[in-house]
């Protein structure tokens, strides 16, 4: 089945096509869910909600851009919605001086994806969300501010603190 056939099938609500789409993207989306959810249980919920939303909204996919990019956006929006709904932690924390210290990329390159994922998962939810949106998804701070209903400055501050926290984790990792 080609991707076009799969999309048409999903738009018709065909369960086989939906399963093919799921099998194709579930693993990558699971990583995304772990990055945003933090723990496995929450990630399972995000994954489920995300795919349900993908199948519900796939009629709106106009094939401008890749299907994976569209699915990723749906998942990110879904994860953000659940994070807001759960009111885990307010994202509009007070602005403090946050260092923009340069982090050496070499140690990062030498670490495995699993090790990095573990560090991201351990970040507080506010830092983690902004870090994921900025560093991994590639959103600009003004877009993040809109998505999270915070100011652009708060987004920058959260991101800087997320980097600091990651830097500490990386140092600790190499000290061990």
């Amino acid at each position, binding site marked *: 089945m080609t991707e076009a056939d799969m999309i048409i099938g999903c738009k*018709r*609500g*065909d*369960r086989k096509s*939906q*399963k093919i789409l*799921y*099998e194709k993207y*579930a*693993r*990558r989306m*699971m*990583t995304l869910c*772990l*990055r945003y959810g933090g723990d496995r*249980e929450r990630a*399972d*919920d995000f*994954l*489920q*909600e995300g*795919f*349900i939303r993908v*199948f*519900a909204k796939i009629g709106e996919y106009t094939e401008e851009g890749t299907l994976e990019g569209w699915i990723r956006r749906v998942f990110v929006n879904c994860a953000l919605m659940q994070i807001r709904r*759960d009111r885990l932690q307010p994202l509009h924390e007070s602005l403090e001086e946050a260092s*923009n210290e*340069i*982090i*050496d*990329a070499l140690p*990062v*390159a030498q*670490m*495995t*994806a*699993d090790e*990095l*994922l573990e560090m*991201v998962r351990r970040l507080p939810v506010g830092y983690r969300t902004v870090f994921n949106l*900025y*560093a*991994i998804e*590639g959103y600009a701070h003004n877009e993040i501010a809109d998505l999270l209903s915070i100011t652009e400055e708060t987004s920058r501050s959260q991101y800087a603190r997320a*980097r600091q926290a990651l830097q500490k984790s990386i140092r600790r990792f190499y000290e061990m």
Partner: protein
Amino acid sequence: MMENFEEQMQKKLREMEYEPATDAWERISGAMPSRHHSHAFVWWTVGGIAAGLTLLFAVGGEMLAPVSDSITVQHVSLPIESLKGEERIAPMSAAPMLKETLTEELKRPQLVNIQQRQPLHRVVMDGLVPLTVETPTLYAAVPVVDICLTFSRHQSSESPRFAFLKGWHVGMGAASVGVTSTDVGMQNIEYNNSVIYMDPMDYGEMGFQRIEDELFHPSSLKTAPVDAKHSSPCLFSVSFYRSLIGKFSFSTGVVYSQLVSRWNLNSSKSVQRIHLLGIPLSVNYQIGSVGAFRVYASAGTEMDVNVSGQVKITDYKGSVQKQRLRSKNLLWTLRGRFGVAYPLCRWAAVYGECGVDRYLNAPSGLNTFRSEKKTRYVGQVGVSIGF
């Protein structure tokens, strides 16, 4: 250098793949409404409903068979003076076979034995009655169908009825808004064997004149209807669900039950209300899914305590007596259920369950549907709504 950090993170984490839970697809597909209903789906649905109804009515049919009744025997003294002598015992013209057996001893009959089935009494006149007479009791039973609406608080889109959720979930349910279970006892009056069914409250003061008029009248010699109704229990429950290993979960909670029974015999009426508080404990298992349908089974037990109760008796004169009822014995129920749930949308699902409740009652002295029928076959349909 800073750019490289983000690039490295992006490269490693965007491409990373992580295996979802093995049952993730089942959960997703089960939580999605099916848009396309094929003919096969329609036929399976109609067939399933028909099969379920057939099963329930077949089970109900079992109750239509004659029952050798185990009536509680209780010796009660009746005011013999109220019988007012032999001339009112029976009209000989209406009951010719009685005439043959009437002896001098019976000119003033001794009521020696009353077998009670509250509030109906079997009056046995000494000398006339071979105690071995069996009186078949017929039960017309309507299969019990409960209509349930279950609200639950849960974080994911799964309905707790699916019983394979993660974490704790709380649900509230109310049941038995639907059809009541009705038992209609038809008591045979076998005058030739001298067995008379009567209610002392109806006949006590008026003596046997009413028996002459009503029971011994040729048109009512064979049967005298006794209407006994045990309404389906009215339930309110708060439930807690917790996932266990794999496809297993367990549920517990608190259940309030009100059992209402009514007896009518001619002009006397009795209404009994029993209030129970129970703790259920069930283990649930997700069998699988057929399309969007989720199939599950559960088994467990429930322990009930009779917290209060009352019987209100209105006799033929209209006077009312109230009596408190309470049993200290624990009431145990074994329970099995087989269910199918179908998600309507992300936050609502309909479900149907059939199953059996087996009552393991210690002698409680309470006459309820639990004591009448040790086994209750249950059909239950409902809507589960998450919020």
